[in-house]
């Protein structure tokens, strides 16, 4: 099968997403392939984490890109980036998929039980692929749970694509709760290097997944300056 490689126009490779989508809307296959190469990896990584099923994730990504091909005319760059648009479509399809699986009496339906208040807890036999958060939070409202799970999946995909050094500082800071000084000591890096890598990592994450955290799937612990919160001592 043709892999689309020779369709790529080197000029189109340099286009920003808005111009690329305009070319897709005009029926340019090469532009479509470039959009795929640019964004499919991230969309796939997000959906695969969300569904816990790589084959299902591939189908969702396929759906999302066919939707882009079919509806490129509707893309409005002022409303958000192409990646955000594709992720929104993928999220919708992925949630549809979970719902559909729940209607089928297969062992995979167990996965959906975790989305309901009745299933996924206690001693019930749970499919090993079921993301454990879905089981632990089974009593939570399904749509809230799905939204949170989606945000987690996208943010994890964003962290996963960071350069190794930046991923390390984020992991140690957020998962192991280490201060910048402790990270510097652990990794034997100068403190300034740790700080600059942390800043770079956060800036990249903001650019890639920031819009997703602005939606209803974001955790609500983002306190406003006037709200009470707790913090570690200044270190």
């Amino acid at each position, binding site marked *: *099968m*043709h*892999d*689309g490689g020779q369709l790529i126009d080197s000029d189109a490779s340099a286009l920003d997403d808005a111009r690329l989508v305009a070319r897709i809307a005009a029926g340019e*296959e090469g532009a*479509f*392939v470039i959009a795929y*190469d640019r964004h*499919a*990896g991230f969309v*796939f*990584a997000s959906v695969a*984490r969300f569904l816990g099923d*790589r084959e299902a994730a*591939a189908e969702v*990504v*396929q759906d999302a890109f*066919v*939707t882009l*091909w*079919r509806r490129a*005319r*509707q893309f409005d760059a002022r*409303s958000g980036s192409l990646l955000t*648009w594709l992720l*929104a*479509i993928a999220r*919708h399809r992925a949630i549809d998929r979970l719902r559909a699986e729940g209607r089928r009496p297969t062992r995979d339906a167990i996965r959906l039980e975790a989305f309901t208040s009745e299933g996924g807890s206690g001693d019930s036999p749970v499919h090993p692929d079921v993301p454990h958060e879905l089981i632990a939070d089974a009593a939570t409202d399904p*749509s809230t749970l799905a939204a949170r799970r989606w*945000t*987690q999946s996208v943010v*994890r*995909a964003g962290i*996963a*694509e960071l350069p190794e050094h930046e991923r390390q500082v984020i*992991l140690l800071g*957020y*998962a192991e*709760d280490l201060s*910048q000084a402790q990270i510097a000591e652990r990794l034997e890096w100068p403190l300034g290097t740790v700080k600059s890598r942390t*800043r770079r990592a*956060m800036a990249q994450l*903001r650019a890639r997944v*920031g819009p*997703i*955290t602005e939606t209803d*799937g974001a*955790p609500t*612990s*983002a*306190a*406003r*300056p*006037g*709200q*009470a*919160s*707790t*913090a570690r001592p*200044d270190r």
Partner: protein
Amino acid sequence: MTAMDHGSAHERIEDLLLDPSRLAALSSSTTPEDIALREHLDGCAPCRADYESWTRLQAAVSDALVDGGPGGAAAAIEPIEPPPSLRARVLAAARSDAEAALAPVPMAAPPRRRWFDRSRTAWLGLAAALVVLVVSAGLLVDQAGRLAAARAEADGLAEAMAAVDRVLSEPQHKVVSLTTPDGAAGGSISWTRHDLVVLSTALQVPKPGEVYRCWLNNDGNGWAIGRMEFAGTTSYWVGSLDEWASFEIGPTTAFRVSLEPPGADPTKRAGPIVLEAALGS
């Protein structure tokens, strides 16, 4: 203490950003810099938005990593690559979709004629036609532009009709009437979980620079979702609810079309509502 300026505020936010919890804990901090930052944020909407955006991102990163799943946080952020075959699969699916949309209408093949069969009269006729073509080139350019515009309109309307077909073929589809401000019928809006199609013949073609913008409203909050297109006297808009995946149509959801003046901010309604429908009814 002197008031903090934008630059200092951003520097302080970037310092606090280095620690997963200190940005969110700004309210309880008693350091002079943080008190000054709080005061600045209280009076500066852009800096406050920046602060809130970073705080939300930090909360999301914490949430993604603290609760990392069975393999822990490190496993949760292992890179995951799509299967190499997916690229060809997606391209094939898009091609197949395009072919389905452009399925040719069967036509009888015209009888083949050999070029040297043409009579001299036919050649002269062709030459005359060529002269006419050259002379009227300017007119043709204009005609071509009009033809392209007409084709674009026809394509758009065909897309809208195809979307209507998709919507109506779904058992769960819904249809409601659009009304003008004086209560007259103004068209219809139909939708499923994925598609939303608006058709109206009640709108005048907008003046240059003006646009008819479509909005979804829920409990006083509005989201701009697109603009009406025109094909002759029919205006339409085809949207995908996929694009607002977090948007649920509820009992109070309304769809509105406003006439926006030239240069209006596309995210805020500035013009009058000209069509409306209650989707939750």
